[in-house]
């Protein structure tokens, strides 16, 4: 008999309680500050096929709802009671998406029957490899990103596998932390097993088994119902990371979202080929991989706030993830910095949904600011000290109903900051300022949320600042319905002095006493035409210091004199702004993007993707670099943005590199 709806809801509460208890146990017993502070972890229950049917709502990261453990589980032949398995290999089982993420699972048995798995992952601060913390854009192969455990049993029938432990710990920089966190994960999956045991005692094995399936079915039904509310159609959107490697060309992620009835297909065929840096997102081609579907999950939650967050919501969708592309790289491409690309992937899906659901979604959030870390020396003791400083986060995009949240929000609302007083007490740094960046929010009827900015200095020479996930210093978060893009992010040394250096998207810099580091995230995109924003709201923004008087006039057409709105001047200025506006009120892209897309038109990009897609994987990034550099080398007036020009450039390249022509011919066979 099927589980009735009342029992289903009760079981859902018990499953959530199990996942929350697992999360609390993990958080409570974890050793590393990183896990405790950033909550970069997940917990849950997965069915025997590896589909997660329970996750916590309050604790942990939001990026892995419905994560599929199936392929990783099946890497191990046979499970017995008391086993606990681990993996952190991005290329075995495709549950792990970069090497610091240690995934742990435990089979749970009832009278000999494998009824489910309790599962968890935490982001380890370091798993060895070429650089401390194991992550850098400069890495090119996964082998450089630390020790990798393919799915392997850490415990066999309750017995610790000391060999696995010793190999792991011999290869990492802070073994005590890794082992402490690993033990917390073991406590976590054991808690899950105990809670499942209690549920089976409470509800009976039949109800539990059926309920487990019904929870997935119900989430699927909820998702299908939500999707039916989205008009059928094909919606295309693309967005770019500024660089595909240190100092590289932009990386495009593009989706064609095809909505039909209660199903969606996401086609990523027009995205970039796999990169030679660590920005690739490893999915193993699983079209329902959670890491790809973060924004889909956010949208489902938006359309149905009661939706069960489990694997079931992924059933109505699928994706095309071409092999050898940035969203499905081939071994051994490096993947460590996939966070940066994943953020862009999120804005791409949100852009597609924004077209399908006009008025429902916010403009792009203000990302691109880094997670920030400083390593310096205490002049009094000579001791080297290291600490996380504030993440430089951005606001939420404007929506049809209101402005975006300032400083954080939308799909970027899960970070916590570090108190200035704690940073200054922990490490010898002086924070010169931390707050919202005036004028950074995209202008609009409903303004985009402001980004944050911070400036600081150190007092000892050879101090290192690491700024991970820097982006958006070229292509700004887009606006919607005629709203302007947010302002770009910034990373400046000695801002405003004659020693100012623009560090662009650099992620590590060495500084000395007297240097000042300035960081700013991008502002979020605005919603609606700026000159339709009520003048008194613009005035309030000016009074609150969120918008400067100059920007009020230039961007909103609101002329303020002596603290009040000059009505006639405002009317005149707004009329002029409206007259100068072009076309329909669509996406608001910044000038850098408009200029770039005048050259790299959609047609040109299609041609490019087709050209490189026909090449063997190891040629693709090489050819991309050559082609993009060749286009850049053309005098601006000759850049036509048509496929024919691109074909010509490719032919020239093939002539220069006969191996390329051979490789192409070989691939075609």
């Amino acid at each position, binding site marked *: 008999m099927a589980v009735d709806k009342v029992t289903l809801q009760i079981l859902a509460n018990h499953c959530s*309680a199990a996942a929350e208890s697992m999360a609390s146990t993990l958080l409570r017993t974890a050793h590393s500050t990183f896990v405790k502070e950033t909550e970069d972890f997940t917990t849950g229950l997965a069915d025997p096929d590896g589909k997660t049917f329970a996750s916590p709502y309050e604790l942990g990261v939001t990026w892995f709802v419905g994560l599929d453990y199936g392929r990783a589980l099946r890497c191990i032949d046979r499970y017995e009671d008391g086993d606990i398995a681990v993996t952190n290999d991005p290329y075995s089982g495709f549950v792990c998406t970069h090497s610091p993420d240690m995934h742990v699972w435990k089979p749970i048995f009832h009278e000999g029957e494998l009824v489910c798995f309790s599962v968890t992952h935490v982001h380890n601060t370091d798993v060895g490899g070429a650089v401390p913390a194991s992550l850098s854009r400069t890495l090119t192969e996964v082998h450089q990103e630390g020790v990798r455990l393919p799915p392997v049993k850490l415990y066999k029938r309750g017995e610790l596998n000391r060999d696995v432990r010793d190999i792991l710990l011999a290869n990492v920089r802070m073994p005590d932390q890794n082992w402490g966190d690993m033990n917390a994960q073991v406590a976590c999956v054991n808690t899950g097993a105990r809670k499942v045991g209690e549920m089976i005692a409470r509800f009976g094995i039949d109800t539990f088994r059926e309920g487990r399936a019904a929870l997935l079915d119900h989430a699927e039904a909820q998702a299908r119902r939500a999707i039916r509310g989205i008009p059928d159609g094909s919606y295309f959107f693309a967005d770019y990371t500024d660089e595909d490697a240190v100092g590289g060309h932009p990386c495009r992620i593009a989706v064609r979202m095809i909505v039909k009835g209660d199903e969606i297909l996401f086609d990523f065929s027009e995205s970039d080929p796999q990169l030679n840096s660590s920005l690739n997102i490893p999915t193993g081609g699983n079209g329902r991989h959670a890491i790809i579907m973060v924004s889909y999950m956010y949208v489902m939650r938006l359309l149905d706030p009661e939706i069960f967050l489990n694997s079931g919501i992924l059933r109505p969708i699928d994706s095309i993830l071409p092999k050898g592309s940035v969203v499905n790289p081939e071994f051994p491409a490096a993947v460590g910095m996939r966070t940066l690309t994943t953020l862009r992937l999120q804005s791409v899906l949100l852009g597609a949904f924004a077209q399908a659901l006009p008025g429902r979604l916010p403009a792009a959030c203000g990302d691109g600011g880094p997670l920030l870390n400083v390593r310096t020396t205490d002049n009094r003791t000579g001791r080297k000290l290291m600490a996380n400083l504030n993440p430089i986060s951005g606001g939420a995009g404007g929506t049809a109903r209101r402005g975006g949240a300032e400083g954080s929000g939308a799909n970027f609302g899960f970070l916590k900051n570090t108190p200035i007083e704690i940073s200054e007490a922990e490490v010898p740094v002086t924070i010169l300022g931390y707050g919202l960046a005036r004028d950074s929010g995209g202008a609009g009827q409903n303004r985009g949320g402001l980004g944050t900015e911070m400036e600081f200095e150190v007092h000892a020479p050879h101090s290192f600042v690491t700024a991970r996930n820097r982006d958006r210093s070229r292509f700004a978060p887009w606006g919607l319905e005629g709203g302007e893009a947010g302002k770009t992010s910034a990373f400046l040394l000695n801002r405003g002095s004659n020693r100012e250096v623009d560090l662009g998207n650099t992620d590590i810099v060495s500084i000395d006493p007297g240097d000042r580091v300035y960081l700013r995230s991008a502002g979020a995109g605005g919603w609606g035409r700026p000159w339709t924003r009520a003048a008194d709201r613009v005035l309030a923004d000016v009074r609150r210091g969120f918008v400067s008087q100059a920007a009020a006039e230039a961007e909103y057409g609101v002329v303020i004199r002596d603290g009040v709105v000059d009505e006639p001047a405002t009317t005149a200025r707004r009329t002029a702004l409206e007259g100068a506006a072009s076309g329909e009120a669509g996406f608001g892209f910044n000038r850098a993007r408009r200029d770039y897309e005048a050259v790299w038109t959609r047609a040109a990009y299609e041609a490019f993707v087709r050209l490189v897609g026909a090449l063997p994987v190891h040629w693709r990034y090489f050819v991309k670099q050559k082609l993009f550099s060749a286009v850049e080398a053309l005098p601006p007036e000759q850049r036509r943005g048509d496929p024919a020009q691109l074909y010509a450039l490719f032919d020239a390249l093939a002539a220069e590199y006969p191996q390329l022509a051979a490789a192409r011919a070989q691939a075609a066979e």
Partner: protein
Amino acid sequence: MGYRVGVDIGGTFADFCAFDEATGALRTLKVLSRPDAPGSEVMEGIRQLRSRFGIEPAQISYFTHGTTVGVNTVIQRKGVKLALLTTARFTDVLELARLKMPDPYDLLAVRPAPLIPKDMVFGIGGRVRADGGEDRPIDRAEVLAVAREARARGAEGIVVALLNAYRNPAQEHAVQAILRAEMPDLQVYCSADVWPVVREYERTITAVIHGYVQARVAHYLGSLQQALAREGVPAVAQVTKSNGGVMSAELGKTRCAQMILSGTASGVIGAAHVARLSGFPDTLSLDIGGTSADIAIIRDGQPQYGVGEVIGDFPIFLPTVAVTSIGAGGGSIAAVDELGVLRVGPESAGSTPGPACYGRGGERPTITDAMAVLGFIGQAELGYGAVTVDRARAVAAVGTVAHAMGVPVEQAAEAIIRIAVSGMYLEVSKLISRAGIDPREFALQAFGGAGPMLACFLAAELGMTHVVVPTTPGVLSALGGLVADVKNDFIRTVYLDLEPAAMAGIQAGFAQLGADARRWLAEEQGHHGAFRLVASADMRYRGQSYEIETALAAADIDAGRTAALAEAFHAAHERMFGHCDRAAAVQVINLRMIIVADSPKPALARLAAATGPAAPLRHVDVHVGGALRAVPLYARADLLPGHDFSGPAIIAQDDTTTCVPDGFTGTVDAYGHLILTLTARN
């Protein structure tokens, strides 16, 4: 000999507890709250104490009071208009808070508007370093210019919260002195004076809430003092505090941030008292009202303490009795969604319009209505005659859900209860796993209007064996005020590595805190009797970003035993997190001192034992387990020590109705507490 009177004002009722020092008898009453005329309900209650129990105001020898004036000021945003002075270039401290959004899965999440809008926030140029040294002095002219501008924009008070003031408050005090000299009518609050804790947002928001409510609370307490004097009450009024203690009402006028959560705190103090008396020192207290349920952990008969409790939209970081509030109460509304799934809450009918069965305009089905449909409530009068239950209205309301589910109305009502209880189970199990406790070792103590109605169902879900229902479950906060001690907290941030060289500083710090505490007790509170000092420190391993409050022995501090202090922390870490690292460096972030002057505890009278078996008032029809059964209805006053009975049963009293389902048996202890024990799984 006289009467000790505790009064606690809640959203719907003002609760009174009067303890007769001669006989040990406890009298209780409730009068309706008067949010429109705060304080008048106190006078009404004092009049009723006389008319109902013959207690003359002149006989009131001790008077404690908990009020929601402060909390309501924040929730309703009716505080004074404030300006905030921060360190220049750090003016967004309230806008940014700690960044993380309340619901990170919500794309459209927004933060609540700050209590002080950004155009009332001003940066000033002074700067203190993390070590307390001054990098840049305060500029007097700038401070005055800023204050004049703030005033021109309507500021009635100014909060000064500068970076690193926890370490050195001199610049905040300098600003205060400048403003006091030039603008004596303007209230100025310094963050380091309200609560000098490290972390700028936490310290600032605490000071802001304090400044926001201070004038309102002081005015209220002033009128209360006058009214008590007019009525001829000789006792010096005491107010209950968020830390579970009391202080004089006079002191409350300037220390109002400390009393902002007094109602929930004194409920837990009352529950802890009952936990000790009833022989269940390890207890989860469960206070369910109309819109929410407050849950607290009591260990060894003592409440637990924490910081960061939420008031309206904002956290406050003063030491507070730890209470977790969940959005489920008797008024939680049930609805069926479009996929046929029944949900209960988080929407609530609250006390207005309230459950449909109260007949006060509510039409949507609530948990209380489901209980009425089943027959668990509505069999006797509720709430001191203030509320009557109309089962027909409940049936009509629950009928809408039953229709959508395609089941009989009683079945829908049972489903509402089951789902509501499983939702509470989810929230309570989060709390207990965060605390790392095993619920099976705890008793569940139920109070509040709806607590005893739902407690047995929840206890069964949590695997808890014992449910305790206090004698006066409706007025436990008022009782808590009566048993609360005079108490105050002191803190000093030192940020030291725990090593022998640091001991002198630690000892000096504690000595200063001890002197401050003694001065507070004698001079501010005016108490000259016995007291205790309790020392602790917030400690952590170097590199951690969170501290554990660790109790320290005064002897170890005085003798400078660094190793013993470190060991106290290792042991606390082990208890809390299951592991510790005795080789790692330990840091001392804050020193804490609590001063406690014990108040006389009412020696509650033991009741005479029963002479015969428990006799129900009558049997009533109740739907239990899908069938209509005749269930005994007892009057609470008829249940005496020695009585026992088994579920299903209903126990009615003025305060509340206790529902005893199948599988539970009940006994009554010497003080009249109901002890309900799960004996069989149903």
